[in-house]
């Protein structure tokens, strides 16, 4: 479905923008974005049209979200480890 590739906006004209993808530039149509696009934004490109503006902050926000997810997942596990060792200590003292 949707080979969407993020690229960096290096120039904006009225209906199009020049977007850089790893050093390759392509003119991309802006008919479909729902907010104004500026140089320095990322856009998601699909079949020659920008379909979404990705604000520079959003990338870091997502990475932070994944770090949080990991921290929570690990947090659960640490708790389980505590409980397991308590059970083991309790079982040991009963024998």
């Amino acid at each position, binding site marked *: 479905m*949707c080979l969407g*590739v993020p690229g960096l906006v290096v120039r904006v004209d009225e209906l199009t923008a020049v977007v850089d*993808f*790893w*050093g*390759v530039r392509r003119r991309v149509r802006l008919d479909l974005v729902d907010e104004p696009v500026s140089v320095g934004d990322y856009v998601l490109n699909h*079949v020659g049209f920008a379909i979404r503006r990705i604000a520079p902050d959003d990338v870091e926000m997502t990475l932070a979200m994944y770090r949080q997810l990991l921290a929570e997942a690990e947090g659960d596990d640490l708790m389980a480890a505590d409980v397991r060792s308590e059970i083991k200590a309790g079982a040991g003292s009963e024998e």
Partner: protein
Amino acid sequence: MPPLTGHTVDGERILLKHGAGGRAMRRLIAETFLTAFATDPPERAGILGLSAMDDGGAVRLGDHWLVVTTDSHVIQPIFFPGGDIGRLAIAGTVNDLAMMGATDVLGLTCSVIIEEGFPRRDLERILTSMRVASVEASASVIAGDTKVMGAGEIDGIVINTTGIGLTRHLIRDAGLQIGDRIVVTGTVGDHGMAVMALRHGLQLDSDLRSDVAPLGALIRAALDASVNGVSAMKDPTRGGVAGALHEMAVKSGVGVVLVHGDLPVRPEVRGVSELVGIDPLFVANEGKALLGVRPGAVREVLAALRAHPLGRDAAVIGVCIPDHTGNVILDTGFGRRLVAEPDGELLPRIC
């Protein structure tokens, strides 16, 4: 319009995929050409013939091998960033000889078929390009042929070059051994992506250039760097690194593990590959070679390659293993997967 009958069309007509360098082409060759040209009795000792399906054929001459190879060039567009059909015609044949170890080129032939109406200026440009490439390769065109066909009967120009060279030590693409490292002489996917970017109206603005270049001197340096250190060679043209390594792995009876992070790929090539959904491992390279190198010889071979202008980005990209023989595995950094065998024409995808 003749009826289209699904599966039987493949059996009745030659399709574009039969020229694409992958599985379909090998099948066609095996079913038609090999059958037609099979010698009876089979090839005598001292001849490396068609059944080997190597980069060229070879005939023993005293303590040397005489290597011969031929290639036809039909590329569109005929002029592209970094080169043209003429440069490709010279480099392609010189490189096929070099892949067998025959870096000493005795001579080349050049046969052209030109479409009526083809601009003379373009022909002269192509021939100039061929001369420049021949000088780089220290090879000369010593025989040729010229034909003209009517407008529309052929597309622009077709060039065939044949080359003959000598080598004491014949190197096969079937020579990989377990533990050998796979070395590539430079960045992957440059030619194929440069041409892809021009086609299908992608309208990309980039510095992508074909890498088309004759490699005789580079390969000579690698072969001289160590005695018997290079076990196998192949140039990853149509079908790309994936296609070439598949063939080498199958013929050699080994598995190959490639490490994605070690593949030298220019950022722009990666950019185009992301945009069109085509992996650089599958696209043609016209100025690169794959070498199987014995573990003890890697340091010297790599140093020799990197000392040469055409080998600055040479890198170890993989290793031969005893498992999964005939397969190429990619270590992506996240997991491992098989690298599919290239099959048919590469088309940009949206999906």
